[in-house]
């Protein structure tokens, strides 16, 4: 353990060497500095301001327990990645996740943000291959991150990773737990969306296994239950948090997809129409427009070409 702490200290002192950081003490005082090393007992830093008339050394040491939190300055190139982290590649993000990993549990550290972005990128790039890795990153954040928001986001990410791994049962179970724990509409919207996706996957499997479900008295009730629950969950932000337009439109557009899957073309068209009318400027509106056109073109009666006399 001691060895591990030493290694950690070395690592931290190494990569912190040129940052412009701020140390906030529990007394409310703060110092613009460059943090040189942090150990569980002491923190070494170099003041960046004038050390004073005494012209003494700018290097200082403070007991770590006196520190409220650190604000680490951005390293070269880091800020741009941080600002754009939701779109960056896993390769780029992994570097920053590793760079800041040692600070995951520190208040206000950016580690969890980089971690979540990294894991989401993994899922985005190749869910099948990367799901396990993403899951482990999310689990690290859940286990050690300081911020509740970071933990909440990682929990959502964990559900996505579980779903990508095909473990719908665990994903659904945890999503239900998560939904019961929170009143935050943003989190609830995401959890319900994930639940709907998981249930939709289950529905697809059920239909795949039972193509003649309508004739099957045993399967039909379960199919109907899943179908309704998926639609209800997807509609939730649209009905109860409609001013979160993107999420509402995402759900409604998802509903159109479920209706199509169920062969309810008219309902699917209506859902697209609702997206277009109620949420004209979201990420999902162009998709709804295209889908509506597709449905209309498929259902439009064929007009025979005029025959020459």
């Amino acid at each position, binding site marked *: 353990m001691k060895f591990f702490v030493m290694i950690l200290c070395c690592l931290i002192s190494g990569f912190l060497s040129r940052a412009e950081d701020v140390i906030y003490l529990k007394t409310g005082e703060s110092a613009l500095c460059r943090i040189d090393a942090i150990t569980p007992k002491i923190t070494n830093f170099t003041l960046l301001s004038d050390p004073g008339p005494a012209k003494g050394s700018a290097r200082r040491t403070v007991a770590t327990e006196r520190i409220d939190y650190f604000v680490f300055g951005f390293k070269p190139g880091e800020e741009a990645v941080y600002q754009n982290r939701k779109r960056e590649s896993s390769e780029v993000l992994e570097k920053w996740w590793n760079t800041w990993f040692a600070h995951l549990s520190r208040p206000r550290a950016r580690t969890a943000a980089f971690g979540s972005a990294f894991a989401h990128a993994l899922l985005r790039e190749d869910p099948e291959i990367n799901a396990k890795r993403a899951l482990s990153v999310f689990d690290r954040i859940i286990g050690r991150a300081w911020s509740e928001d970071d933990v909440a986001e990682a929990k959502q990410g964990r559900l996505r990773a579980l779903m990508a791994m095909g473990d719908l049962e665990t994903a659904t179970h945890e999503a239900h737990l998560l939904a019961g724990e929170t009143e935050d509409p943003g989190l609830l919207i995401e959890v319900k969306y994930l639940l709907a996706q998981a249930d939709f996957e289950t529905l697809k499997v059920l239909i795949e*296994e*039972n*193509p*003649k*479900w309508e*004739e*099957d*008295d*045993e*399967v039909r009730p379960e199919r109907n239950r899943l179908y*309704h629950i998926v*639609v*209800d969950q997807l*509609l939730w932000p*649209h*009905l*109860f948090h*409609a*001013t979160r337009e993107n999420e509402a439109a995402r759900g409604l557009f998802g509903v159109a997809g479920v209706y199509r899957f169920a062969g309810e073309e008219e309902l699917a068209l*209506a859902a697209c129409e*609702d997206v277009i*009318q*109620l949420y004209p400027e979201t990420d999902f509106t162009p998709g709804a427009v295209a889908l509506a056109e597709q449905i209309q073109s498929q259902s439009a009666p064929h007009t025979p070409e005029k025959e020459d006399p």
Partner: protein
Amino acid sequence: MPTSVRCVEEETETADPTGAAIETEGAAQLLERGRVAFAANDFLVAEEALEKFIIDYGEAEEAKEAVRVHRPMLAISKVGLKKFAEALKWIALSLKDPKLDARLGDELKFWRGICLMTGGELVDAQHAFGAYWADESHQAFKRYEALLLFATLYIQQGFPIDAADFLEDQQPKIRESAPEAAGRAVVLELYARLQSEQPDKALAVIRREYDSMESMTQVISFQSLALQLGSTFLENENWYDAIICMQRIWPAEKLIEAQGDRVKEIEERIALLEKRENAQGVVFQLKAILKRVERELENFRKMENFDSALQLRLAMAYQGLGRYREAALIMEEMLAVMPPDPVVESATLAQLQCWMEIKRWPKAVAAAEQYEKVFGEEGKFLPTVLFLKAEALREDQQYGTAQLAYGDLVERFPEDDFAAKALFMQGFLYLQQDDNEGALYQFDQVQRKYPESPMAQDADYWTGQAFSFSGMYAEAREHLEGYLKRHKTAKYLKEAIFRIAVCTFSLAEYEDAIRLLEGFVEDYAGDPFTDEANLLLGDAYFGQGETEAGFAAYERVRPTAVRFFEEAWFKKGNAFKLLEEYETMRTHFEDFVVAYPDSNRMPEAVYWVGWTYLNADEPEKAREKYWEVIEKYGNDPDRYGVLDVIAALPKVYKDEGEDGKETVLTKLQVMKTRAAIAKEATRAVRAGYGKSLIVGKADTVVGSDVAVRSELLDIFKWVDPQNHNPAISVAIAEAQLAAGNRTTAKNLFTEIRRWHPRAVQKDRIYRALGSIAAREGDTDKAIEFYDRFEREAIASAQLGEVRIEKAGILREVGKTREALETLESVLETGGVTAQTKAGALFDLGETCVAAGDLKRAIVYFERLYVAYGKFSELNAKAYWERGKALESLELNREALETYEELVSRADLERFEETKKAGEKIARLKTLVPPAGEAEAGESEVAL
């Protein structure tokens, strides 16, 4: 008009008379007193002192400077006292003063606008405010007020569009510097848009400003206006805009909280400004705003049902748009969190109706139950709700529960309009379940209890129908004739006339039937009933020997009425047969085969074609016809009927005996081989299956017959469980199972079930899957399949055997009670063979033995050989097991008697148990005294 723009409304205290002392004051004292009072905002005293000074001393040259200095104070004091008309004069005089203090000038210019506005000089007032707003050197806070008042004056003059456009244009300019004023400008703009009847632009304001609502001073006003706009959209059936609008209205609690925060902010600001000098004007304005906002908040708090009304309106908009699910979900959520009120009550009913609209019956039932729970007997819609609940249950095919629900309504609300309907529906449900007597009783009740209800006529008509369904045609006819007499405007006129004719036909009164049916066909030409009428007419005419008319009637049945059309076709063919017109008969059925190869009756037609040849002693032509059909349709998987034609082949080779059978088998083999080469899988499978049918018995479980099994295993490679007749696929799967290919069999059974969940062979599928699961050690799965068998194939002849197998598994997993119950149920299952029942009894005995219940076991074993003596092997085992159980119970005498009975039965001699029984007897005889001795011994003991 929104409250933001009303100006000075501060209540002033009743004047504090300054008393006679004033009379004694000189100019200096008056000025001093006036100044002090003005500084202290005591406008009453200031006005009195300063005005007296100006009037009494103003003309004096030495007082002119003092007058000039104090005139603005007098003007402001008059404003403070709401003496706007008087103030106007003093303001005008003050503003003429070139040396007027800039700050005072600023103040007076603003108040001039107020005075003009209050005095009804709206144009001048607007000019005044316009000039004030335009001059950026004026005090900022008042400039924003001037802006708002300028717009207000547009509205007051009847130009709301100008007001709105002006505000839309100006409001962005002040958003950053004066967010509070900008917020009020938005409210005023929204109000002006509504006044202008520009709902689209009003909606744009709401969409634009939604994100800024958090900081809006008059958030309640804004949202109230949004609700007003939403309601207007709703009234105009502009559903989307109504939704957009109402989606952006906060719940009451959030609104009150936000508005409360704004009040606090204003209060804090006032407190801060009051400490500053020269801030009276701003304080004055802020207090006016505060008062308005507080009044809005107070009024809003008094509003009842705000949230429920809002949610209900939103749900109505979705309902109007035809989005019943969305409407129902909104109402469901709302009802879950809101305390009951009249709006909530209406919403519950609306929710129930929405669920019914999208046929989501369990939700409809739940909504009805929720209504009952929350509103109980007090609910004003309770009868409607109870009726809808019963309807939902009926639609959900929960007939028993629906029956009770209708009954519940009738019992609780016998006087309600729905009671008669519910009573009628009870009868109708009985009818649906073939309980005609039950239906007749209910229909009679409807007519007795509710003779004035419109449902009485329905009950009257359906009584006649119920008689008809019961085969009581005379009663039915009489009743329906009475129905037509009793109701001058009979709701079921056509139906009753038709049914009377049908009953007459059913009573074999053909002459009257022809008259009635012909009348019906003429009166209701083109009606769907006319096809059945023509079919019956054909029968009736033939019954009367009127052949031509009969044929003509059959020919009038239209192909669109498939069932009647085919029936007419076959009846016509049968008529040709009776008339011995065999050639015509053949052509008639040949035409059918060609025209309707998809019909289920196609093989029947082929049969009749063949029959005409056989009848003409031309069997080869009959065979030719059969093979022709098989050849033509044999590879089309949708033509299930071909299999029946193949199965019937032996009939047309009957005259050739075993040779004929061989010929069929050879031809089928050739067909199979050729089909295989041509990759005609369906034809190959059918040919092979046909062979298996001819080789073995058609519909038995495959396994015992090796020839059948090998044929079926041979065609396995071509079988397609999705497209092929499950009769073939199941037989092949059973052959695989019998051959020990469990996994292959399991996969095939699973696929067949997947594609044909309603196949008539589902009993065989479930049994096989259950048995496979049991053999694989998955007992839960096995029990699941057997349970499904019991639920879905209750009429299967295999039910008893399946229950025995299931009981075996239950016993294996230690569920003795369930195992015994299952075995007991075999004894009560109809259609179960005696052998199966005997087997069940033996298993019951064994299960009891295994559970240590020997007393119960001996009863089952005895019952077996007493009731089912012909099953020798089981009998021998039952005797043996009973004897052992009796020995364990130390009932040696009874055990001895049992073994003796076993050995005494000649038919059981060959069994091992009988041989072992001899040894038992020998041993037991040494333990059990002879019967007489024992009795004596017992007597001694008794003595």
